[in-house]
């Protein structure tokens, strides 16, 4: 038995050595002029080129705007797909005295409110949601979300114009999730080409890159010449699109690096304004209560074209026109609903 314990210890030590790279920062004092400390708990990794990375990239942007690590300290826990793990991490950060703890996942709701009512001096943020818990008397929780159907709609317009087969494939994670994006996308396609066929398939997972890659193969074989998809699993699908020279429309983060020749557009979530606003509010003593939404209007959503490839001007023009229509309210890409990633 002793031997087993010894070996378990050995493996454990090896693991510690392997995982010790996280940017934890304990010793910061809360003195005058001390940096603002923000912690984030997220379901996948900071490099998922999707949901989690969009937040992490925005945080680092804010950090450099504020003047680097001396002004803003960032700690993060990634890969917290299990709510119990995330819940423990949220509580730890609160106990360690972080100024703002961001729970970056719809599934973390209960945990956030539970911890927030124990640490009323700490500010929390919960995405994706519009619920700040105000009706339950909680005052230290911000809520945030993206109106992803807006970008979905624009990507749909682009897809319809790029497609020559009029068959377009969509790779979703778990049914119901990413619904806003996909609904907006379908609406965008059909507004341009009412007869075009949009095939939607779900892998049943956020992280099954193998199945997402195969789903891309399937869509291509079924005739699709434009693909899009959501969640961190899409890296596999983009690889396949790249290999087959099929256009890919990205969402959440910048995905051009994966398919330099096939990624046409990206809808990018820019949380920087939201974060800056939260920090400003916290410093004036307002610890929560606001629900933020990313839209094209408030520059939370951006549509970026891949500069490396040639895109017909009429496509770019149609996309810009669609964005303007959304901003001005001429187009309402499906009803605004809650709970999208």
């Amino acid at each position, binding site marked *: 038995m002793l031997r087993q314990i010894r070996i378990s210890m*050995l493996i454990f030590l090896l693991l510690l050595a392997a995982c010790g*790279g996280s940017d934890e920062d304990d010793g910061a004092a809360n003195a005058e002029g001390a940096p603002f400390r923000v912690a984030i708990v997220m379901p996948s*990794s900071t490099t*998922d080129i999707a949901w989690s990375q969009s937040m992490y990239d925005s945080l680092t942007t804010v950090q450099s705007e504020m003047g680097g690590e001396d002004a803003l300290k960032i700690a993060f826990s990634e890969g917290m797909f299990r709510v119990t793990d995330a819940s423990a991490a949220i509580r730890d950060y609160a106990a360690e005295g972080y100024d703002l703890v961001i729970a970056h996942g719809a599934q973390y709701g209960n945990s956030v409110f539970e911890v927030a009512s124990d640490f009323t001096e700490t500010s929390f943020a919960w995405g994706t949601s519009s619920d700040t818990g105000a009706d339950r008397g909680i005052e230290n929780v911000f809520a945030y979300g993206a109106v992803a159907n807006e970008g979905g709609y624009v990507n749909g317009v682009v897809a319809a114009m790029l497609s020559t087969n009029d068959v377009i494939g969509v790779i979703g994670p778990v049914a119901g999730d990413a619904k806003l994006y996909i609904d907006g996308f379908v609406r965008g396609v059909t507004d341009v080409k009412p007869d075009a066929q949009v095939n939607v398939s779900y892998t*049943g997972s956020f992280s099954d890159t193998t199945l997402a890659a*195969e789903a891309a193969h399937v869509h291509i074989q079924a005739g699709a010449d434009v693909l899009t998809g959501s969640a961190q699993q899409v890296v596999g699908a983009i690889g396949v699109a790249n290999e087959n020279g099929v256009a890919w429309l990205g969402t959440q983060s910048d995905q051009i690096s*994966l398919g330099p020749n096939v990624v046409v557009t990206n809808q990018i979530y820019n949380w920087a304004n939201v974060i800056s606003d939260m920090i400003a509010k916290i410093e004036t003593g307002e610890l929560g209560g606001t629900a933020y939404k990313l839209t094209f209007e408030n520059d939370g959503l951006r549509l970026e074209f891949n500069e490396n490839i040639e895109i017909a001007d009429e496509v770019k023009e149609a996309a810009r026109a669609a964005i303007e229509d959304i901003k001005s309210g001429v187009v309402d890409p499906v009803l605004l609903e809650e709970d999208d990633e």
Partner: protein
Amino acid sequence: MFDELFTISTLVGILHSCVRLATPYLFASLGETFGQRSGVLNLGVDGIMLMGAFFAFYVVFEGHNLWVGLLAAIAVGILMGLLKAFVSVTMQSLQGISGIGLYLFGLGLSSLLFKTLIGSVEGVSGFRQLAIPFLSDIPGIGHILFNHNALVYLAYLMVPVSWFVINRTTLGLKIRAVGHNPEAADTLGVSVNGVRYTTMMIGGALAAVAGASLSIGLQNVFQENMTNGLGFIAVALVYFGSWRTVGVLGGSLLFSLVNALQLWVQALAIPVPSEIAVMMPYIMTIVVLAFTARQIQKPAALARSYERGE
């Protein structure tokens, strides 16, 4: 509405998907078969796959030849196999626990290396589709079987090769004996630990190639935890296949077929709720396991370390 599913082109597409999807499962579960037949349960397959996937990707990303990438994966896989063998065979740690440890080690180390050496998700140009001349022109079958990348062919080639090694070579005889009655093998001068080290290295190499088949074959990217537990399913497939290579082949194909089927059902907008479609592979697996619960071939010394007694 189901008519669409039964058109020739769809059926060909489903089988083509199935053949390709089975690739990583085949490599990993054939490797695991070697280990289990020699009496070592390695639950760390997924960790080795991640390490193999990372190193293959990294070497190719750095501009080297794909085959060099594959060799790098094999080398790392052998090292991981040696580590597993050292912990489970020499130190005689509980095999289940040390396997989980190896998995976590591979998961953690591959993520760390990825963050420090690459930093963001990138793409590479992996093994390309390689249509075999003439054979791929056969209608239907040609596309299903002979229009894949080199690693897919290699995976299927490993089935008869593994069968041959296990059943027709002296090493294979030793593996089977050591997995079933290590004491008997020991009295005949067979080095029990030597055989188990060998199978761990073979298993490690194959698991690493399974990982490489994802990162430089089927997806051409590397992402943290990109195997998504595939290695654990590979271990289950070994039980599923009753420790026989042909059983492992059947299990891998069946599991992949149902996966391919659900993707096609959804892509063709056949009105089956996607929740049901996603569950199909698992339901199928349980059903088949229930009907194939034969354990005749199970190595009697599986997961038991061997110490020479008097």
